[in-house]
């Protein structure tokens, strides 16, 4: 990858489902090393925005990673450009071992001959990643037997092992214990130093502990942006979170990406 700092730049991104604007003109820039949290009530369009960046939802506007326009590319092409994501429900390959999961994640560029042979010794990068996400002891276990937190770490590891430059993490600490949350936060701090990381999260304590900056989405638009303190003191944010009811549950776009 390039030596210059990477960044993710969205300008006027719009996503429409049957006339309903799930994302309505979002512009934001995330720089490398800036651990950005994306928050907002249910239906605000957070997951839809991640879908748009990763090529799952059709969008208008512009989404650039460095100088590369991502919009209009196929999902697997965007992934190959170094944009990686996780899902709310941990989606690891449950019938394969931890090692096999990571090996698949590492190998999208392998040629046909390598693909048709069995894996010889474990690639170094995989050993390093196992160490980073703390799963070395579990490498030969089926991923389906891991705890919920371990699955989330494995998912993050699957992005690290192929050296994704942009990490889009959808509720990485949902359902985790307190200690697991702290470990996840520290992991994100470590791997985020030289990457562009966006975390979609509901957990405010977790956000306060680890966010460098925060973007608040509401009804498909950016409501507020800044440091944790700035966002928390923004009266519009307080109104959305405390004053009015969450937006129409029928349009809830954050629940069902399964």
């Amino acid at each position, binding site marked *: 990858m390039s030596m210059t700092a990477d960044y993710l730049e969205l300008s006027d991104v719009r996503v429409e*489902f*049957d006339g309903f604007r799930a994302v309505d003109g979002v512009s934001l820039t995330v720089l490398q090393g800036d651990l950005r949290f994306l928050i907002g009530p249910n239906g605000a369009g957070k997951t839809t925005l991640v879908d748009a960046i990763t090529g*799952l939802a059709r969008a208008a506007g512009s989404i650039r990673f460095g100088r590369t326009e991502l919009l209009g590319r196929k999902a697997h092409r965007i992934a190959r450009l170094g944009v990686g994501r996780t899902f709310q429900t941990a989606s690891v390959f449950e019938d394969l071992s931890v090692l096999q999961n990571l090996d698949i994640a590492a190998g999208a560029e392998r040629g046909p001959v390598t693909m048709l042979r069995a894996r010889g010794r474990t690639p170094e990068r995989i050993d390093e990643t196992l160490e980073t996400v703390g799963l070395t002891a579990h490498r030969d276990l089926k991923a389906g037997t891991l705890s919920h937190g371990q699955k989330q770490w494995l998912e993050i590891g699957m992005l690290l092992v192929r050296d994704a430059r942009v990490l889009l993490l959808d509720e990485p600490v949902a359902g985790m214990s307190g200690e697991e949350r702290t470990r996840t936060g520290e992991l994100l701090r470590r791997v985020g130093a030289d990457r562009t990381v966006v975390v979609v999260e509901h957990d405010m304590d977790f956000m306060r502990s680890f966010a460098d900056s925060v973007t608040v989405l509401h009804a498909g638009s950016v409501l507020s942006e800044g440091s944790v303190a700035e966002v928390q003191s923004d009266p519009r944010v307080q109104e959305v979170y405390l004053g009015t009811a969450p937006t129409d549950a029928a349009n809830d*776009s954050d*629940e*069902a*990406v*399964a």
Partner: protein
Amino acid sequence: MDALFAQLFAGLSLGSVLLLAALGLALTFGQMGVINMAHGEFMMAGAYTAFVVQSVVGDAGLSLFVSLPAGFLVGGALGVLLEATLLRRMYHRPLDTLLVTWGVALILQQLARDIFGAPNVEVRAPGWLSGNVDLGLLQVSSARLFIIVLSVAAVVGLGVLLKTSPLGRRIRGTVQSRDLAETVGVSTRATDRMTFFIGSGLAGVAGVALTLLGSTGPTLGTNYIVDAFLVVVAGGIGQIKGCVIAAFGLGTLQAAFEYSTTASLAKVAVLVVVVVFLQARPQGIFSVKTRSLV
């Protein structure tokens, strides 16, 4: 000009038969994701019901009107039995339901063979359905016209049921979001069973109708099941109108291809058209928007 109208009518007629066969399938597939290969055998059961009713009642006209509801009940009962014994265990394995119901289809075919014999049986059509009707532009078979009317009636009836009745609302709700329907108190189990009853009942009606066009044999359903599924695939899931458009569209295409080539080439051509069509619309003509990834 006459040839064109004749072609158009042939297409409509074929389409109405496909529609009757596919309507119930679309319902069960759309709501439960169950691919019921025994649907064709439910049609066969409806056809044999007409045969039995006629041998009891005698009069062809009266027996037709007794057979239509009787075929509905027989088909529906078989459907409920299948749902209750096997399918409700397998909602999370839709592809496997295809193989299981295929096994059921084999058993039903052999049962028909053992009960009614392997040779086909005939059901007499009432006198007023055995001739032709003059529509001014062309003479058409009154039995085929009757089936077109019957298919329209089935669509309208099903549409009214889905749109206005409480059961219909439950069915539509379950199609759109099974989980949500459950959380607002819809008994999806009971709804599933009723859906299966209606869908399979429609197969029985289709079977009765088919006795007007030809003889009845144990493999009657197999001849229609593949085409009926193609209609469901092309039409999309969860909406009747997709099924209607696809049935008449494929019927017309098939008739047109048959006219210009041969019946066997027409089958291949229709399949190619469906595959090409899915390139443009992978979900079929219409599909209920759900937020699942696939």
